[in-house]
């Protein structure tokens, strides 16, 4: 009997050791996500994070990383500067090795913290250009913010140059007039500082920007002012509601869409080319343009689009052709790929902020499954790619008017305090 008890005890000890070993081999990787579920970008946030969570769950089932358990922690930061900082601190205390936010305002609050704490962050918030090009900083060095798109200034410059080419092709003489409009925060203001001198150099006459408060209920004054100034190109980096409002008020002001001396093209940014704008603006959206990096939802030939549609059917029982879902999927695709590369280079158990940062800066042609161009970063380069698509609203749908991606200029500010290599503006 004693021998039996001893044998049982030995077997249990061996099993326990084995279990402990197995548990010890699984590394928990914490990432912190700032989710703006309330506030002005509540709609986009819901879509982005749904897609992120669905795809992350899919990856853990269908493409698991052995020994890695992903723990995603989040807070509702309400697109509010006061909430980003405490959330950041809590994520840091929880051991987050990487963070994700979806806000230029977040970057204006947290950009330097990410740098000083050396925690990389993935973000679309490139309205805050100092995240790209740090200025007036004591400790020089590149940013820890890795963007999922080029700066809005590059995007709008590319869209404006496409317009200028079409203007010249149509045989119009003279300088077309262009203006920016948007509410008073980094996101809409983002393109203005770098684009204004660049586009002036390229042959536009730049009109004063029309800035308004985010509480505005109509943009009639701004539309009337730009019509009076005979703007041929109106650029606006705003969310769907304001872009739709701009389209409607432009129509009310008597603006005629088209390319020509007495006509205007309204050009939106990445939040514009979706069905919400067409629903809200109705006929007033017919003919407007928008620039972004995401493929159209009818591209079933693309792996990423096909997968997102499957995930939508599984979770929502319907297809919602909105680029915000592709945005969320970008983050999950990227982080999963990065974790695999970190393990490949540094081994299991070494998914740390420092290693993630190094792998990100070495990333070349990372496959985004066709939902966006492949991602490549560099020691100082934080743009993942330098190309965009131009979309136009036609007959109640957004269609891509550029046959392929258009190459974007890479605009640099005058200061180079971060020691960025000088790149000649294209």
């Amino acid at each position, binding site marked *: 009997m004693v021998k039996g008890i001893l044998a049982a005890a030995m077997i249990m000890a061996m099993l326990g050791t084995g279990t402990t070993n197995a548990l010890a081999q699984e590394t928990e990787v914490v990432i912190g996500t700032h989710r703006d579920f*309330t506030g002005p970008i509540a709609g986009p946030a819901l879509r982005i994070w749904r897609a992120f969570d669905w795809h992350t769950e899919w990856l853990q089932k269908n493409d698991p990383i052995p020994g890695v358990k992903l723990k995603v922690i989040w807070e509702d930061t309400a697109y509010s500067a006061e909430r980003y900082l405490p959330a950041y601190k809590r994520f840091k205390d929880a051991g987050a090795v990487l963070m994700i936010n979806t806000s230029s305002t977040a970057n204006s609050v947290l950009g330097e913290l990410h740098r000083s704490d050396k925690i990389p962050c993935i973000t679309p918030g490139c309205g805050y250009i100092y995240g790209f090009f740090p200025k007036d900083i004591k400790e020089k060095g590149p940013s820890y913010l890795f963007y999922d798109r080029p700066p809005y200034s590059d995007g709008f410059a590319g869209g404006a140059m496409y317009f200028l080419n079409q203007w010249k092709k149509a045989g119009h003489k003279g300088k077309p007039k262009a203006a920016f409009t948007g509410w008073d925060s980094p996101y809409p203001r983002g393109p203005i500082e770098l684009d204004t001198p660049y586009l002036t150099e390229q042959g536009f006459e730049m009109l004063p920007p029309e*800035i308004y408060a985010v509480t505005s*209920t109509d943009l009639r004054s701004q539309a009337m002012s730009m019509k009076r100034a005979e703007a041929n190109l109106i650029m606006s980096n705003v969310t769907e509601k304001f872009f*739709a409002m701009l389209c409607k008020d432009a129509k*009310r002001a008597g603006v005629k869409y088209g390319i020509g001396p007495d006509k205007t093209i309204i050009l939106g940014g990445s939040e514009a080319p979706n069905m919400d704008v067409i*629903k809200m603006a109705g006929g007033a959206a017919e003919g407007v343009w928008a620039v972004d990096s995401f493929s159209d939802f009818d591209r079933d030939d693309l792996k990423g689009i096909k997968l997102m549609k499957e995930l939508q059917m599984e979770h929502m029982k319907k297809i919602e052709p909105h680029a915000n879902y592709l945005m969320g999927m970008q983050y999950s695709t990227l982080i999963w790929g990065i974790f695999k590369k970190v393990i490949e280079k540094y081994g299991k158990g070494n998914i740390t902020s420092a290693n993630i940062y190094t792998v990100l800066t070495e990333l070349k042609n990372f496959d985004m499954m066709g939902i966006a161009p492949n991602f490549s970063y560099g020691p100082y380069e934080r743009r993942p790619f330098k190309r965009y698509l131009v979309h136009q609203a036609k007959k109640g749908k957004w269609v891509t008017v550029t046959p392929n991606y258009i190459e974007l200029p890479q605009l640099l500010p005058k200061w180079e305090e971060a020691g960025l290599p000088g790149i000649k503006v294209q």
Partner: protein
Amino acid sequence: MIYFLQVVISGILVGGVYSLVSLPVVMIFKSSKIFNFAQGALVMIGAWVAWFFMDPAQGLGLPWPVGILLALVTAVCMGLVIERLTLRRLIGQPLFATMIVTLGLGAVLTGIVAGFWGQINGDSYPPFIPLGILESGPMSIPIDSLIVFCVAFALIGLFSLFFKYHRYGLAMRSVAEDHQVSEALGIRVTAILQITWALGCLITFLSGILLASISSVSHTLDSVALVCFVVILMGGLESIAGVLIAGPTVGIIEKLTAQYLDPLMGGGLMQVMPFVILILFVFIRPYGIFGLERIERI
């Protein structure tokens, strides 16, 4: 000069909506001395309820006259519920208490909208108001804004007459002066307060529908209340005529600022200027254009 006139007309048209949104606040204050800080949230919920009845994809898809009618019926019910459950108990209570309750009510209503429709970025109504413009030489007036302005002013005119001549309107004015005297005259104060809130919510929902029809159904419609508080204080807390004058005045101030001052200052002054004017105005006429000066005898 033509352009200046165009700007002024634009301000008058948008001011019509401000007047309509401000009217229920004045009505409720006149009859119960409660300043309704939930007005913005009620405007927003009115727009979304009407959208729910009318939208074919994510709502009930009813024809727009039926949808709007049902939204107004919902408004009346909501007004009765709000009065009965929350505000009746505040009669005679300190002003601060009523402010806090209506602020809380606004937060609850905003949360209800977010809870039901937070995942929808925004939408528009079926086009029951045409989007065209009326052109006369160099002047152009948006048809939808003109229609909304006419409806707003017709309603305001109607309610002015209601308060002056209809027995319920007179009863509301009596209740506003003194509850005890009104009871003594045979007026059921609680019933009148219910009618006030029901009517107030009905007008508020209608103003939300009209506002959303010219902008869009969105989660930031409540921000119109910020401007309306300026309209109310400028016009006088208890004056419907004041609201009629102050609404377009504030609209004109906004539009002129946007056209002529914002380009000089880099933008953003349009929303601030009405408040600046209000502060200056309050120094000269603290009770508003047509507000009543209260003299307390000690």
